[in-house]
């Protein structure tokens, strides 16, 4: 078992960014543990390895204070995908992404892909709300298990097609998110025509009901596959690029190729 844990070198890195309380940890918890729990608070960054087919995906969940303590760029270094998360009921959380978090992604890979994710959709969208098993929305204390119906279904479409029954006014519209995605591309200097389309990269999710959570992660993993393959190739070509070397290098490393 120690031998295998040593072998589990990450092939690719995905980072969850966004203000505290938007539900980053809940999203990851829902995806990896299939549960929604209410007693989670993140300190710093938490590193997870997730098996995706033959690949090891490393996922960094962050606390939301990254810009302040200066570790954000470390978490983002060499990332192949960044999930910029906001809370659909909190307009400020979208604004914060632009003001505080976007600049942290400067250390990500040049071909890094960006997903804009509006979480807590269960609070604004009947469809997301109904994904859950029990109709009692107040049961946040207890663990709620993901709806069997949903997990039995084939993977839902990567982006919710339209919002049919809005239960109460949203603070962040899908159009806001799409527009923000456009500004990300401009910030990165990417060409909108050759980049992944906003339609495909903006998600609305609910960690609470599980709505669209698998779709988000699976779509991203699919998209970073080329990046993983390239990395595997690099690793095979030059045996120097691995954790062992990073460890021995110690001290101050520049933007290393490792994870």
């Amino acid at each position, binding site marked *: *078992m*120690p031998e295998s*844990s*040593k072998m589990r070198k990450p092939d690719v890195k995905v980072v969850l960014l966004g*203000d*505290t*309380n938007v539900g980053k*940890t809940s999203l990851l*918890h829902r995806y*990896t*543990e299939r549960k929604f*729990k*209410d*007693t*989670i*608070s*993140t*300190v*710093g*960054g*938490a*590193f*997870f390895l997730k098996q995706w087919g033959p690949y090891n995906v490393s996922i960094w*969940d962050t*606390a*939301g*204070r990254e*810009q*302040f*303590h*200066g*570790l954000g760029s*470390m*978490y983002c270094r060499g990332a192949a995908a960044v999930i910029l998360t906001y809370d659909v009921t909190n307009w400020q959380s979208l604004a914060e992404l632009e*003001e*505080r978090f976007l*600049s942290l992604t400067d250390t990500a890979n040049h071909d890094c892909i960006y997903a804009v994710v509006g979480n807590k959709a269960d609070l604004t969208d009947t469809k997301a709300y109904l994904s859950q098993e029990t109709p009692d929305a107040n049961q946040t*204390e207890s663990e709620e298990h993901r709806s069997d119906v949903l997990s039995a279904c084939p993977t839902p479409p990567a982006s919710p097609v339209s919002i049919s029954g809005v239960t109460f006014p949203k603070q962040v519209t899908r159009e806001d998110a799409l527009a923000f995605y456009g500004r990300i591309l401009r910030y990165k200097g990417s060409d909108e025509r050759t980049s992944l389309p906003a339609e495909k990269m903006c998600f609305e999710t609910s960690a609470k009901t599980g709505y669209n959570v698998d779709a988000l992660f699976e779509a991203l993993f699919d998209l970073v596959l080329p990046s993983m393959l390239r990395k595997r190739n690099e690793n095979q070509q030059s045996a120097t690029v691995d*954790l*062992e070397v*990073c*460890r021995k290098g*110690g*001290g*101050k*490393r520049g933007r290393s190729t*490792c*994870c």
Partner: protein
Amino acid sequence: MDTDNDQEGETQGVKICGPPLEVNTAADTLATSLSLLGNHMFPDVVARKAAREDERAQDVPEEPPQDTEGSLSLQATEPESQEHQDDVADGTQSDSGEFVVTVLAKAKLEEQGLGVKGHSSPLLEVGIQESPPAAHGGSHRDEDVTAESWRRHRKHIFVLSEAGKPIYSRYGSEEALSSTMGVMMALVSFVQSGDNNIRSVYSEEHTVVFLQKGPLVLVCVSSSRQSEQQLRSELLYVYYQIISMLTQASISRIFEHKKNYDLRRLLAGSEKILDGLLDLMDSDPSFLLTAVHCLPLASSLRDSLSQILQKAITPNLVFSILIAKNQLLTVVQERAVIEDARLEPADIHLLLNLIGASSAFQAGEIWTPICLPLFNPDCYFYTYISYLDPPECTVCLLLLSTDKEAFYAVAECKRRIEEAMAAQGSLGLIAKAQTYSVSQVGVADLRHFMYKPFDVPDNHRQLTQFTSPEMEAPYHTEEEKMRLLDLYRYMHGRIHSNSRPLKLIYHVAERETLLAWVTSKFELYTCFSPLVTKACAITVITKLLRWIKKEEERLFIRYPPKYSTTPNPAKSSRGAKAEQTDSSDNGFLSLL
């Protein structure tokens, strides 16, 4: 019935440091503020006496200081004697502090038509005021702050900025309490304007303690009957926990740039960590004793664990800490670092609380900046946290580095530690390690104890520790545990009283007898069945000390092991080791 009196608790008055206040017109404003505060916090407040600290001390008769070190002559505090009679101030004296409070008292009496209540014994109410603290979860945020139940909480804690902006409240949301906090701030700034620092306010049922640290003001409103000193030290822990997440330097800089900055933006999500700290302080005597509790372990096993940690190193690693069941197994420290400073128990407590409060998601490996405020309040260590026994998650490894980029290197140290522990079957052995039962001491009548040795002479940089058995019947329910802890807190408060410290207290309570004893070598708190005699207690303590001596190897970390991870020890001074927070400057201003 327990009739022993708590002098601190029954003293009514406002204690104000420094010279008396000038009587000025601002006093009226303050009086209004105070009565507002009274409305919010305690409608039955009856402040009856105000005095400056020095005057107050004379008012408080206590046993003469006894120097019983090394001998076991005991003096009981007479259970029946009324140790302290209050003078009822009538507001005719000229001290303005007194004036203000008298105004307050009158205002309250008129408003509420309340009479002066009779005194009650401090320890009578202890433990029955509130059910034990709720588990982590922070459901207190939604409390109705106007409800009676909100007022009745045993201990309120508020944190606010100097500008009066709410930062944290233990119960109820800060927003709902912003007017209360504003009033507290008015109180603090009023007293500051006279070059005084307000330190505490006593009322019939509450002690209000203020602590100002840099740009933060911390307030505790307690009906727990703890001493002012104890409450202040708890406030200090709260302050340090905030520092542990942000560093003192950052907080100062933020408020230098923007006086009315809303610090909640940076502490968002950390309420649970502070909630957890407050619950822990109520239930864990480690904080009271400022000592760490290590898990009893055969010294051979502890040594082998230390050796495993000693071997798994990487440059810039400074502390390797192994924890099981929230108790310390071993700590290995970088040799050069401990020449400068030792690891303080308080820093370990804060670290343990931080882990505990964020442990809900235990599958991952955490890499986070953490400041150890007593080690250096202005610097971060980069801390790797991982559980070694998922999914149980009782054994936790902490590796502290000064290099923020070292995550992968440090994670690799963990793999090696994991491997070595697997090879030696350490996890299985750790799982068998138990806290012990007081019955192992083998003396009747002894129900519980807490023993804190001071530094062993030949190793003065040793970590301060204490040992204590499991709390067993009759202290097995939450209420009874809390009651015993309250008794210990009371004994501790008297032993460490500022005005009249004591070396030895023999306290006959209703349901037990307690003895607290402090010497140059140790601090000891013991709890006996109520029928024990003094002579018997002395015999038991002699036996207990002998037993501890015999078990020392197992009960304590004897010689904290060291390693050298840094090739150039010259750069190991405190300031250079832990990274200054300057690196966080990029983007720092945009936060404001």
